[in-house]
């Protein structure tokens, strides 16, 4: 098990209380806190060896290049992938757009269909819709069951005609917490259409559960640094190198070209072909340190901690009056994000009262408007856990919710 008390000391932000209370950070699903070791790695780059990458012949530039490529290699190792398939982007959103522009727009044609789900984050949805509109593609959405899982039976029907050539699905839902059976879904898609490409949004999975891309057997996987205990300004598309080979460059400029004449340009090798301009150097170094930090804890231990703690939170919330928890019943099928609504109180008001008490939760639609419509809610409250949370964080959450209920309960008629 994780030694959470010791771990908390690694996170500078958690050392600051809010108005005399311990900071209860329950928003790692929006952005994780950053451990000291990540800040130190970036500080070393900026403070002792700052330079640009890939072309300098002086020692600082060589060190910067080694650091940047080291971040790429660390992420590849963390996810069980080939470094040649790791394109470093600014966030997961850019990674999804890269697939949408580079693959979907390039290779899909009218008559082809895209499979998605109703629980996608806008990042793994809008780029493909935009591509579908541009190329005249059909969109199909896998519905969810009552308890917030993908309806695989429905999925099988949706792909049956063999026209689904691309699927975009999230590994872990940022609202429901559901862990989706992506390997099974990929197999099902490919059974109907062997050359279909399966893209997975791993933004909420990689920080929380062990991910081995070799075993998952999907074509591409998007992650984002700031949820992986890393810095802002970095993410990645982790793909089979052969997928990248067939993709159209998307952002163009320096670094990504091999040769340029006034008549045209030839592209560089993958993954560099997709990294135009000066890359996020400090950020790659920080991300490398961040995944190293998680590896040192052990992703199995991280998952075990979250399963145990998640069960405590789930039952604590379910037992409290007036709270409805969304998503799967059991931690076996869910990650570390727990969404709920409170009878008669708008999520905004819950969030504000909690925030005033040093309890940080996210409220709103969590960039999942279509899912909100499925749930019949305009917004939810989401508490999400990470390695630095423990059972002591539950009580302040429940107390704050009770206080908000007392404050905002309306006469029954209008509730």
């Amino acid at each position, binding site marked *: 098990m994780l030694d959470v008390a010791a771990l908390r000391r690694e996170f500078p932000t958690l050392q600051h209380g809010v108005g005399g209370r311990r900071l209860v950070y329950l928003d790692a699903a929006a952005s994780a806190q950053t451990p000291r070791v990540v800040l130190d790695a970036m500080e070393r780059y900026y403070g002792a060896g700052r330079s640009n990458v890939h072309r300098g012949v002086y020692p600082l530039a060589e060190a910067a290049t080694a650091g940047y490529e080291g971040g790429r290699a660390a992420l590849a190792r963390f996810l069980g992938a080939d470094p040649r398939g790791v394109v470093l982007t600014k966030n997961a959103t850019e990674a999804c757009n890269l697939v949408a522009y580079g693959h979907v727009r390039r290779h899909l044609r009218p008559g082809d269909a895209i499979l998605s789900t109703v629980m996608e984050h806008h990042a793994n949805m809008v780029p493909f819709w935009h591509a579908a509109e541009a190329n005249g593609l059909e969109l199909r959405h896998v519905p969810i069951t009552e308890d917030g899982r993908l309806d695989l039976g429905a999925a099988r029907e949706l792909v049956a005609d063999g026209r689904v050539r691309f699927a975009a699905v999230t590994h872990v839902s940022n609202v429901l917490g559901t862990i989706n059976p992506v390997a099974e879904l990929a197999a099902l898609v490919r059974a109907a259409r062997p050359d279909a490409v399966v893209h997975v949004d791993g933004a909420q999975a990689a920080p929380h559960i062990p991910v081995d891309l070799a075993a998952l057997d999907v074509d591409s996987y998007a992650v984002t640094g700031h949820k992986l205990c890393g810095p802002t300004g970095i993410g990645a598309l982790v793909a089979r190198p052969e997928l990248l080979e067939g993709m159209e460059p998307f952002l163009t400029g320096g670094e990504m070209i091999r040769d340029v004449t006034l008549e045209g340009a030839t592209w560089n090798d993958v993954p560099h072909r997709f990294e135009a301009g000066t890359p996020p150097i400090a950020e790659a170094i920080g991300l490398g340190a961040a995944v190293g930090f998680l590896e040192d804890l052990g992703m199995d231990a991280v998952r075990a901690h979250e399963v145990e703690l998640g069960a405590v939170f789930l039952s604590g919330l379910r037992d409290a009056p007036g709270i409805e928890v969304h998503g799967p019943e059991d931690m076996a099928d869910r990650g570390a994000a727990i969404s709920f609504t409170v009878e008669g109180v*708008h*999520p*905004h008001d819950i969030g*504000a009262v909690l925030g005033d008490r040093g309890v940080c939760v996210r409220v709103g*639609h969590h960039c999942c408007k279509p899912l909100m419509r499925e749930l019949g809610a305009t917004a939810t409250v989401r508490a999400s856990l990470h390695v630095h949370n423990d059972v002591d964080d539950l009580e302040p959450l429940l107390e704050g919710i009770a206080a908000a209920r007392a404050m*905002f309960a*309306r*006469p029954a008629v*209008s509730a």
Partner: protein
Amino acid sequence: MSELEQLYQELILDHYRSPRNRAPGLRGEDAHVHHSNPLCGDEMDLRVRIRDGRLDGVAFDGEGCSISQASASAMTEAVTGRPVEDVLGLVEEFRRMMHGEDPARDDDLSDALAFRGVARFPVRVKCALLGWMALRDAIETFQRGAGTHAVTHDDGGDDDDR
């Protein structure tokens, strides 16, 4: 009082708990707009009745946080019966107050003045503005003669906050 308590002072909570002019319809309505603040999931239907250049009646309905609901309620009291040009001026007054400027027409704003503290909570400004921006839109819809049922999706007109 903590900052939060200031935000949720009694006057505001009272408008939230007992909203004025909250109704799903308005007799003799001249314009109806639907506004939403998709970032928060707030939705609002706003209806106006205009007679002889005056805002003769206004009703709102919808879902939202206490700030958006209470602000709309306080607004309806402040604007009913005023000439529409005057109402538009008051909308602007409120909008500027949400940007941290001192309001000049304290008396006219009436209970809406209590929302002054919202300016310190940037993400809540949109909530407080929702009803006011819908009102402006409804009046302008009427003035354009653009039929009585314009429906827009918008989260604050030309307001540049988020």
